[in-house]
């Protein structure tokens, strides 16, 4: 199905926001201004955006430690996220969560997560809620090629199947879990989707560096799940451009690997080539978005730097009981 000009511009813009958000963090983290562990989503933009462009706020997603892309794609406030990562009390979680714990329930973003594999069962519950309400909404749990090995993930898949939960188990296979390759950690010959299939779900696969592959695949997956057929699983083959976390020496990479994926597996380059070659958008259209996004990110960083800092008293708020 052909996307409208507006839809294409929007998709590109979302991917570009994620890209520049992360590229900028990569630079800012080196200055030491940002605290904590940060896992960047660069390289995987087409997945988050190709998925979330199909969703509205009532559809729910559950994210991972590498969650910035999912958050942006689902509609979290970009400036609020930047402030959160800077640890400001004006951040989207008041500086209490940081990069690994960004959440905005109002937009259907049920939380990034520091515990690998914790998201899948949460997704099942969210999906069951939608099933009870009979509103045709779905829950999508993002997991990596590492997270797919947690028992929680297996339990969640089986429970979703037996309860017919409208849950989508979405696997982003970027080929690494920290420093370990997927060919070592996943026993089924590198394939995560076929393992999900064995649980009794219908499965799909797509190219996670190509927005159109993700978007087309997800149209089918969502149609199937929204129709009340129960859960489904989908695996996208994708790339992680940076280290596992900022500071990772990446000794597991092959020679020239990063140059190769930056050159040939870059979701933004691939999108640009596709839409300009097909005359759907012009280079100038995309350049204009690039400029606008750079301004947004500059502003987000500038505002985050100046945003109000939390105080000692803030440690004790948002609790049920005070001692």
């Amino acid at each position: 199905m052909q996307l409208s000009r507006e839809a294409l511009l929007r998709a590109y813009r979302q991917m570009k926001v994620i890209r520049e958000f992360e590229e900028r963090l990569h630079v800012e983290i080196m200055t030491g201004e940002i605290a904590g562990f940060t896992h960047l989503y660069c390289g995987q933009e087409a997945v988050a955006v190709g998925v979330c462009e199909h969703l509205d706020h009532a559809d729910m997603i559950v994210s991972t430690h590498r969650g910035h892309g999912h958050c942006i794609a689902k509609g979290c406030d970009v400036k609020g996220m930047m402030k959160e990562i800077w640890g400001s009390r004006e951040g989207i979680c008041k500086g209490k969560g940081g990069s690994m714990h960004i959440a905005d329930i109002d937009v259907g973003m049920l939380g990034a997560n520091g515990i690998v594999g914790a998201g899948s069962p949460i997704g099942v519950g969210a999906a069951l809620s939608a099933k009870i309400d009979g509103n045709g909404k779905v829950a999508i749990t993002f997991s990596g090629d590492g997270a797919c090995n947690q028992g929680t993930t297996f339990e969640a898949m089986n429970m979703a199947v037996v309860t017919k939960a409208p849950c989508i188990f979405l696997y982003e296979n970027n080929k690494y879990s920290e420093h370990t390759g997927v060919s070592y950690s996943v026993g089924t010959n590198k394939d995560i989707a076929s393992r999900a299939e064995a649980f009794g779900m219908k499965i799909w696969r797509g190219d996670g560096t190509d927005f159109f592959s993700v978007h087309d695949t997800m149209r089918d997956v969502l149609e199937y799940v929204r129709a009340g057929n129960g859960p489904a699983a989908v695996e996208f083959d994708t790339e992680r451009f940076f280290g596992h976390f900022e500071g990772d020496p990446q000794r597991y990479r092959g020679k020239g690997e990063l140059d190769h994926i930056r050159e040939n597996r870059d979701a933004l380059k691939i999108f640009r080539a596709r839409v300009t070659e097909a005359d759907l958008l012009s280079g100038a259209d995309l350049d204009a978005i690039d400029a606008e996004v750079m301004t947004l990110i500059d502003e987000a960083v500038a505002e985050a730097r100046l945003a109000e800092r939390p105080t000692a008293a803030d440690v004790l708020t948002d609790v049920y009981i005070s001692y």
Partner: protein
Amino acid sequence: MAQMMYRDAVLQTLFAEMERDENVVVLGEDIVGGMGTAGGPEAIGGIWSTSVGLFDKFGKDRVIDTPISESAIVGAAAGLALAGKRPVAELMFADFIGVSLDQIWNQIGKFRYMFGGKTTCPAVIRMAYGAGFNAAAQHSQSVYALLTAMPGIKVVTPSTPADVKGLLTQAIRDDDPVIFMEHKALYGTMGEVPDGDYAIPFGHARLCRAGQDVTIVTLGLMVGFCEAVADKLATEGIGCDVIDLRTTSPMDEEAILDSVEITGRLVVVDESPPRCSLASDIAGLVTTKAFASLKAPPALVTTPHTPIPFARELESNYLPSPDKIEAAIRQTLAWR
């Protein structure tokens, strides 16, 4: 004696024990690193660099890099131990005990008793714990109280490189399950480490500073904070006993009680929340067993009863600090 970093004391002790006893095996996520990648094995040697070179020396059967599956890692340690091996499993972060809790709590910790003494379970579960890195609510916790509350498990919290060597050696040789907790903020600290065979029996606290006026009981990263405060107060003529527990299970009750009987004042410094905590446990011990010696109520320096916040200002206000410790000591001394 050699000068060495805390993290290297972990690595060298693992190395020495694996060399000494072929039943010792290690397992955990990325403890080799690079498996199934173009870069090949030994890409990392554990994210805390505590297993660098083990794979090369001892091979893949005894140095087992695992998928992200904490429940299976700890469960496999249980099975290895029951079948006669001496596993040392690593959880990257102590917070991940949540994923593997059944295997620790209902399995490993219960075998000896539940099976009527028929078996032991010589498993060691190492884990990095503690705050100070703005790693937020799920990567910063000091979970020793939770684990100490479980019968059947020994809990060890070394604060110096020497104690790492002595206590980890003991943990691996011990016939019972041991949780070995390494504080993240201590990995880079240096200290003298005894040469040769060196094991420290469990349940023997270390007196780090001696004084007559107040007893400070603490552990882990907090030991250094307490020593600094004690040194400062010593210049004013205030004497502190600083007791590093070393192991919270078994706990050296005698060392605590003997000290409080002289000082009459107790301050517990504990990097975890106050309810059902190590701090309240020790206060309970002292009030029930040394009540008559007390000249002031025990003072507890803990974190607030909340999850651990992310932002720098929040985390630093959350944690016990030398200032808070000093204030608690002064308050105890000034009592009535």
